């Protein structure tokens, strides 16, 4: 039962998605099945969010309880989850769901800071805490690229030397000063890099990988739809 039911569900859902691709969504309901299924997916995902919250609270609360290394940061994680979620879920007017009861207990001046509006606590935390931290993490990528490039571009053998030479040309071509430098050798050199290196070798290899990956994805989908592949269920 634990195997048969998921296989049937996978077969029906997968076949529906394939079939819907070939029908006009304006003429027949089946053509619109993909969008409907995605809406279902969003609804199921919304309910599954509870599982995520339970997991994050349980793992971190246990670490705080045991006072394990970095317990203070884990405590901050748990506090942050609720600090973002609870004010955002509160009713913003008396007419909102549960609003009349809520504002009979708490002052009406709270209306402006609850919910997800522009003056809310949620918005403040998102703009001044969450977004800067995310941007900082993303900005760090530049340093990581530098260290990875240093390791990858070491001229250890003929192939690595070729990679180093090509990468240097492409990096020079990508910045205005570098492009001006390349033009000192030949006015057409940046154009050649664009045409042959990026539009030729690079695109050819990328397309090869994309075609292979697409076939792999289609093959795996087919194996799942037909119940041949069951590894995604741990079988």
């Amino acid at each position, binding site marked *: 039962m634990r195997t048969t039911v998921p*296989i049937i569900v996978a*077969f029906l859902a997968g*076949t529906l998605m*394939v*079939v819907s*691709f*070939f*029908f*006009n969504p304006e*003429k*027949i309901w089946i*053509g619109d099945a993909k969008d409907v299924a995605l809406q279902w997916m969003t609804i*199921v*995902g919304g309910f*599954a*969010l509870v*599982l*995520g*919250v339970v*997991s*994050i609270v349980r*793992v971190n609360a246990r670490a705080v309880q045991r006072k394990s*290394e*970095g317990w203070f940061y884990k405590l901050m994680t748990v506090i942050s989850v609720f600090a973002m979620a609870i004010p955002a879920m509160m009713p913003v007017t008396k007419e909102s769901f549960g609003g009349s009861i809520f504002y009979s207990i708490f002052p009406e001046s709270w209306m402006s800071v609850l919910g997800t509006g522009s003056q809310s606590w949620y918005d403040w935390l998102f703009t001044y805490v*969450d977004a800067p*931290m*995310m941007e900082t*993490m*993303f900005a*760090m*990528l530049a340093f*990581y*690229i530098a*260290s*990875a*490039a240093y*390791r990858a571009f070491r001229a250890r053998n003929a192939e690595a030397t070729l990679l180093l030479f090509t990468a240097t040309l492409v990096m020079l071509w990508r910045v205005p000063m570098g492009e001006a430098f390349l033009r000192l050798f030949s006015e057409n050199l940046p154009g050649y890099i664009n045409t042959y290196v990026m539009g030729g070798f690079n695109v050819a290899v990328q397309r090869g*990988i*994309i*075609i*292979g*990956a697409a*076939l*792999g*994805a*289609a*093959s*795996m*989908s*087919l*194996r799942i739809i*037909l*119940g*041949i*592949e069951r*590894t*995604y*269920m*741990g*079988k």
Partner: protein
Amino acid sequence: MIKQKTIQILPIILFTVMMILILNLSAYAQDLGDSVFLYSRTTVIILLAVFSSAVLLYTKWARAGKKLFIRKIAGVDAVEDAVGRATEMGKPVLFIPGIADVEDIETIAGIAILGRVARVTAQYETPLRVPVRYPMVLAASQEVVEQAYIEMGKADSYDKDTVRYVAGEQFAFTATVNGMMMRERPAANIYMGGFFAESLLLAETGNAAGAIQIAGTARPEQLPFFIAACDFTLMGEELYAASSYLSHEPLLLGGLKGQDFVKILLVIAILIGTLLVTFDAGDWYIDLFDVP
């Protein structure tokens, strides 16, 4: 035995019936320009039929016991070695099934590989850490890991927090996982699934932490980062082949051979197209594959 065979054959019959249904429905459509069936996608049906037939045919041959050659994938072979290294060092294995949601086929492939990795970690009783970004992936991964521990007879060793939800934000997830790498120093980091800008942040941190790293993704734009920072990288289709390869089941390997057969057909189609376009006679051929 008969019941099991019926279950295996039933989806194939139903799938065929569905395909016949499509063609019949298309026959009923009167007006080509405003029809129920999208005629402009007929080429896809033909390709789908060829592809499905190839996969099913090779699967049938594999079931019949025919020996099929599958080339070795170094990255997949390294998975068991990496878990063995972690066991010897007494350190955990970190597995990340990508940061995409469960509807992404790359995530499904990642979860399928996770099941195989979990079997090995269960066998050696090596700690496994699986941080995830989406609750649906959490539920699916928990199920797969628990099943692996049960099948290896190590249900008592299974910890429900092996798979844990860490954050929904891309870079919050990255920061948490990087922190885990630096604090717990896993001996092996396995990245299998859909990755985006965080790929290098994760792989470089893992490299700095001294872990053996195996990555797999179908996204060409992230592959250079993994190749630069990881010991082994599964590229594109290898990610989807990995779970079948690890299972060593002939039935699944048959699907891979079918895929290779279609790849040969596509190479021939590309060569024909290249020749036709070179001699300025390829417009009709391009239209054939132009699916709106």
